[in-house]
C-alpha cells in the first residue's frame, strides 16, 4: 500500500499535465520488469490463488460466508471484464444475465423441487447464454455497427426493465423476490453455506478463470485486442467484428448466468435488485478498480471493493459509502488502468500472441 500512496502522490504532484490515458503504468517496477523480461502476471495470479486457498483456515464462519459471496462476485466480475476489458463492449446491464439466471434456478427449486447441482448450474448457465444471445444479437448484429452509446443504453435499459418487471410480477414474488430457496444438492448431500460452498465456488472460479485465460491468449484473443484498439481497422482486414462482439457478449452472459445461479443458492433468496442497475454498476466498478483488460484485475477489484466496503461499514457506520466513493474516484482518476497497473506494465497487460512466444522463451537463457 506504501508504493501505491507514493505513486499517487507522484501523479498528484505533477499536476494537470499528466495525461490520464495510457502513460499510467510507467512506474519503476513495470520498467524494471520489462528490462528483465520477468512475467508479473503469473506471480500475481499464483499469490491470489494461494491466499484464496488458505483463507478459510483463518476465518470465522460468518466471514467464510462473506468470502464465498466475494468469490461468486469475482466470477461475475470476470464476465464483465471479458465483455468490456477485452471486447470493448460497454455493457451496463450485466446484472440482467446474473439475475435472470438467479430467478430461473430459484423458480426451478421453488416450483419444480429441482435442486441438483447437475441440473441447476447448467440451467442457470444456459439462461445466461440464451438471454445474452438474444440481447446481444439485437444490440450488436444490426445492419450497421452499433455505437458504444447505443449498446451502453440498450444494456442499461434491459437491466432496468428486468428489475421493474420482477418488482411488479406476482409470480416472481414482486418487491420481496423469492425467499428461502432450498440448498443445492448432489445426491443426498446438501451444499449449504460454509467452507464447502466456498471451495466449490472457488473451484468453479478457477476453472472459468483458466478457460477465459485460454481464450484471451489465443488467436481469438488477438482478434479481440485488435477489436478494442481499432475496430474499423480490423474490419478492413476482413474480420466480422460484430460477430466477434456478439460471441464475447454471449460468453460473458454465460459466465454471469453461472455466477447468478451460484449466488442465488448461496444467499438462499433472490430479489429484484439482482437484475437491476445497482448490481450492473457495481460490477463495472470492480473491473475498473482492479484493472480492466486483465482477468486477475477483475478478481482483485471484486475482492478489494467488497472487502473494503465490509470493513468500512463495520468501522465507519455512517460515512462509509462516502469514503468508498472517494477511494473509487481517486483510483479511476489517477489509475485508469486500475490497481493492477501498479505492478503490471503495459506491454505485459496487452501480451503477445504469436507462435514466436515460445521461440523467444527458448532463446532466453
Amino acid at each position, binding site marked *: 500500500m506504501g508504493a501505491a500512496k507514493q505513486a499517487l502522490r507522484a501523479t498528484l504532484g505533477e499536476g494537470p499535465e499528466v495525461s490520464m490515458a495510457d502513460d499510467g503504468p510507467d512506474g519503476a517496477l513495470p520498467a524494471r520488469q520489462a528490462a528483465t523480461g520477468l512475467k508479473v502476471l503469473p506471480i500475481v495470479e499464483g499469490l491470489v490463488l494461494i491466499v484464496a486457498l488458505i483463507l478459510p483456515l483463518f476465518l470465522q464462519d460468518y466471514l467464510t460466508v462473506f468470502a464465498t459471496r466475494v468469490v461468486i462476485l469475482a466470477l461475475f466480475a470476470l464476465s464483465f471484464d471479458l465483455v468490456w476489458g477485452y471486447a470493448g463492449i460497454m455493457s451496463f446491464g450485466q446484472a440482467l444475465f446474473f439475475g435472470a439466471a438467479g430467478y430461473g434456478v430459484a423458480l426451478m427449486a421453488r416450483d419444480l423441487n429441482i435442486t441438483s447441482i447437475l441440473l441447476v448450474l447448467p440451467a442457470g448457465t444456459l439462461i445466461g447464454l440464451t438471454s445474452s444471445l438474444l440481447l446481444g444479437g439485437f444490440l450488436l448484429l444490426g445492419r450497421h455497427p452499433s455505437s458504444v452509446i447505443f449498446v451502453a443504453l440498450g444494456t442499461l435499459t434491459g437491466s432496468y426493465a428486468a428489475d421493474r418487471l420482477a418488482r411488479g410480477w406476482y409470480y416472481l414474488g414482486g418487491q420481496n423476490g423469492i425467499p428461502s430457496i432450498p440448498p443445492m444438492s448432489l445426491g443426498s448431500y446438501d451444499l449449504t453455506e460454509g467452507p464447502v460452498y466456498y471451495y466449490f465456488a472457488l473451484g468453479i472460479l478457477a476453472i472459468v478463470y483458466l478457460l477465459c485465460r485460454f*481464450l484471451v491468449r*489465443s*488467436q*481469438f484473443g*488477438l*482478434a479481440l*485486442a*485488435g477489436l478494442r*484498439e*481499432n475496430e*474499423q*481497422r*480490423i*474490419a*478492413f*482486414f*476482413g*474480420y*466480422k*467484428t460484430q460477430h466477434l462482439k456478439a*460471441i464475447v457478449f454471449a460468453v460473458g452472459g454465460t459466465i454471469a448466468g453461472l455466477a447468478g445461479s451460484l449466488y442465488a443458492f448461496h444467499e438462499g433468496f433472490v430479489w429484484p435488485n439482482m437484475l437491476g442497475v445497482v448490481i450492473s454498476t457495481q460490477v463495472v466498478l470492480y473491473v475498473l478498480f482492479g484493472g480492466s483488460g486483465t482477468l486477475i484485475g477483475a478478481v482483485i477489484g471484486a475482492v478489494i471493493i467488497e472487502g473494503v466496503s465490509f470493513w468500512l461499514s463495520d468501522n465507519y457506520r455512517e460515512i462509509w459509502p462516502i469514503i468508498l466513493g472517494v477511494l473509487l474516484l481517486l483510483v479511476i482518476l489517477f489509475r485508469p488502468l486500475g490497481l493492477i497497473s501498479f505492478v503490471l506494465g*503495459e*506491454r505485459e497487460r*496487452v501480451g*503477445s*500472441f*504469436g*507462435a*514466436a512466444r515460445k521461440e*523467444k522463451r527458448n532463446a532466453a537463457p
Partner: protein
Amino acid sequence: MPLLEATGIGKVFGKLTALDGAALTVGENEFHGLIGPNGSGKSTLMKCVAGAEMPTRGKVSFVNRDITALSPTERARAGMSLKFQITSVLPNLTLYDNILLALQAQSSLFDLVFSRTRGVLHDHVMTMLSQFRLADRAHDAAAALSHGQQQWLEIAMALAGKPRLLLLDEPTGGMSLEERRVTGELLQPIKRHCSLVIVEHDLDFIRDICDRLTVLDQGRVLASGTVAEIQANRNVQEIYLRRA
C-alpha cells in the same frame, strides 16, 4: 476484363459535391496512380472504392462482381485491401502480432479459439516482416517504430491477406527522401501478384512506380492513361501550373 472498374461515381457531402461522375479502371498487376490537386476528390474516390464511404451514385465492380453495396469486411474477403492515409497500426501490439492479426483474418472461429493457425502462419509473418525490413523489431510494440517504419508495417499488414488489389492512400506522407526511395523498392516485388492504386502528392514517386495514371480535378476525371501520355497532356499541365 479489368480487375477494378468504377464508373460514374458521385459523392455529395451535404452541399459539397466531392465527386461528380468520376471513374477509375485498374487492370491485373497494374500500378495505378490517382493524382490531382488538393480537393479534387482523390481520397474520396479511394474511400468509395474501399467501402469506407458509400457513393451517392455510380457502380464499383471488382473481379467481375458488383461490389457497390458491400461492406468493407466483405470487400476485404473478396480480395481488396486498404492502407489508410493516417497510419493505423495497432500501437500497443507487437509488430509480430500486428501482422498475425492481419494474416489470421480469414481463419475460422474454431481455428482462432484453439490457435490452430498460429504455427502455420509463423513463417509467413516473419517473411512479411523481413520483406519490409522490420524482422529485427518483431517483438517491439508498434508504437516504438518511426513514422516511416509504421507506414511499412501498415503496407505489410495490408498485403498480408494476399489481396488482388491494394489501395494505398498517401503511403509516403511524412517520409524522408530516403524512406520514400525504400518504399518504392519495397512495393516493386508485389506487382507479381497484386494490383495497386496509389493516391499520392509526390509526383516523382508516382512517376517512378506507376504504369498508368488517372488525374482528377473537381470530382471529375481530367485524363487517364500511361505515365507518358499524362505527362504530355496539356490539360494536366495546366491544372498543376494553375495551382502551383
